[in-house]
């Protein structure tokens, strides 16, 4: 396969993984603006394990996800005391703090960044991504997504129906962070270099954009969103300097015309969304 295409597929895989990291918490109503922080944790932890402890890449990548998960689990309780926009901003602040700390952590290179000694091939990145996507798909056939929808929609009722709202929230945040951590670890091992500056707010923001563009109602939304985000700017490559402006305009118009995202439950079930929403407002 051509080098360009391979490279593009890797980018797509990385973007997709990050998108699923945002998608899971979002299904529970948490807009995580600090996902890049969890990616950074995964990246740095796995890099440290390969560099300093000589772990094999795959084990280190898994451990990267695990580290992000542990961190998420620890912070979840306090962070989930907040809701809605406050939660988003709390995750945003968390992401900033994580970055600022990593930037000053000299054991992992500080501001100079941290090289990673082991390289993984494009195939590995794609394979891990496929596994993650399949796992999320599998999860979508369990009770979890409807429970998350309940927690998102009406936490009080969810609680009165016996769901453990807090635990579901923690689980969603942690699962998202785990996926993001794995994504960060893949990034570190494919590019063999991590720097804290890369995992800034803008990365989190763009990842949220993928998900909303694709739509949050279906498991395929994040995949489609990530694909658009990877491919459209490439397609606009010929218009060179205009491409990011055009792309931003595209996002705005898209959101204005199709706020529910590209892939909707209605679409997957061959139902028109308008009817669903109409019914909702009629209540």
């Amino acid at each position: 396969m051509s080098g360009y295409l391979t490279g593009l597929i890797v980018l797509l895989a990385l973007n997709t993984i990050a998108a699923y990291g945002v998608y899971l918490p979002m299904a529970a109503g948490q807009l995580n603006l600090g996902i890049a922080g969890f990616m950074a944790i995964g990246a740095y932890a796995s890099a440290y394990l390969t560099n300093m402890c000589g772990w094999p890449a795959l084990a280190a990548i898994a451990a990267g996800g695990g580290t992000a998960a542990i961190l998420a689990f620890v912070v979840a309780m306090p962070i989930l005391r907040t809701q809605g926009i406050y939660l988003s901003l709390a995750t945003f602040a968390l992401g900033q703090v994580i970055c600022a700390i990593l930037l000053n952590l000299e054991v992992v290179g500080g501001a100079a960044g941290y090289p990673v000694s082991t390289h993984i091939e494009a195939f590995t990145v794609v394979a891990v991504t496929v596994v993650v996507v399949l796992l999320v798909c599998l999860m979508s056939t369990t009770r979890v997504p409807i429970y998350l929808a309940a927690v998102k929609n009406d936490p009080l009722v969810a609680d009165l129906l016996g769901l453990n709202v807090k635990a579901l929230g923690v689980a969603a945040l942690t699962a998202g962070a785990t996926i993001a951590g794995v994504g960060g670890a893949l990034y570190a091992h494919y590019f063999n270099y991590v720097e804290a500056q890369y995992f800034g707010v803008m990365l989190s923001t763009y990842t949220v954009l993928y998900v909303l563009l694709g739509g949050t109602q279906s498991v395929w939304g994040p995949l489609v969103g990530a694909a658009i985000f990877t491919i459209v700017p490439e397609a606009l490559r010929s218009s060179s300097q205009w491409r990011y402006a055009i792309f931003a305009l595209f996002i705005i118009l898209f959101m204005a015309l199709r706020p529910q995202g590209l892939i909707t439950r209605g679409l997957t079930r061959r139902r028109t969304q308008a009817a669903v929403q109409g019914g909702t407002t009629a209540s």
Partner: protein
Amino acid sequence: AYGHERELVIGLSMARTGTFVSVANANEIAVDMAVDEINRAGGVNGSAIRLVKFDTAGDPKQSVLAVEQFARDNGALAIVGPFSSSEARVAFSAGERLGIVQMSMSSSAPGVAAPFKYAFRNTVDEGLVIEMVLKAMRAKNLSMGTAAIAYATDDAVSKAVGTTVLPEALIKVEVPVGGFVDFPYKAFDMSAQVSKLAQLKPDIVGVGAPPEAMINLAKEMKRQGVSARLFAGTTVGDPDLPVRFGDAGEGTIIGSPFYSDLNDAVRAFARSFATRAEAAKIGRTVPNQTDISSYDIVYLYAEAMKRAGVTGEPSKIAAERTAVRDELRKMKDYPALGGKITFRENGDAIKPIYVLEAKGGHWTLFDQRTAD
């Protein structure tokens, strides 16, 4: 296009959009210029050079994509770029796996090329530059009783300059360091730092920062009435800096691998660059250090390819890429436009340093030195 039968492909990894656009957007012009000149003069080994370009927008991920494409799809023999240190770190690692030479025109973070055999940088080590600057200042008897150091903490180059390069260089010229102030890379408010400097009362302030932060520092010093001479290395290399200082920052001294008024050849380059830049409407007509560096990289490649006798035949591509690398490593004092270039073991260039002083809205040549 020039009547050659075969083509030698060179990749250009450029940051035409994105964060570095204002510094990097003219690199393409300089590279085009060099390629045209070489082809017009008969090419290399009877073959024309063909450029393939890839805009990375300064994004490390995209720079790897560029390397993959150049090496695997375009059959490039070498790559001009990538631009920044962030890109270089990941792109160099990819280039190493693919066995293709890359040479950055701008990356100056310490030791970025060192771990790699195929990685080069046509930039000079900050430590050398700053040492030259200080030696020049001492030689001209500037008042330098005590020094202070101001640097950006969240950028690898700036931080290294501030925490190691400047202190070591100041020790060498026996100037005591009164204290440090630091700020974020994109700082706009320097009031706290300058109030602290006001307390330290230094004669000179060594700066490890991008031009913007240095301008902000100079302006705030003026506002708070703190007078001290600023000096810095190549991190602030910008032909327009004296203008951008406005009435602050007069007398600032920097070291640079490029001085636009150096000699006829450079002036001719600047003129023809200006013509092309005007036509391309990029909003700038004066070349900067990364432009001339990009220009020189093409000539360095041409020379290395000539010496290695590359043919551009697809079957021999891997060997020829390695041959280009080996020739570059062997090269001694290649007479490039910016001065004589030799590559050190760590892949960075050794070349002349021009010590410049900001005077009345221009850079003036303060001194000229060569390391080693």
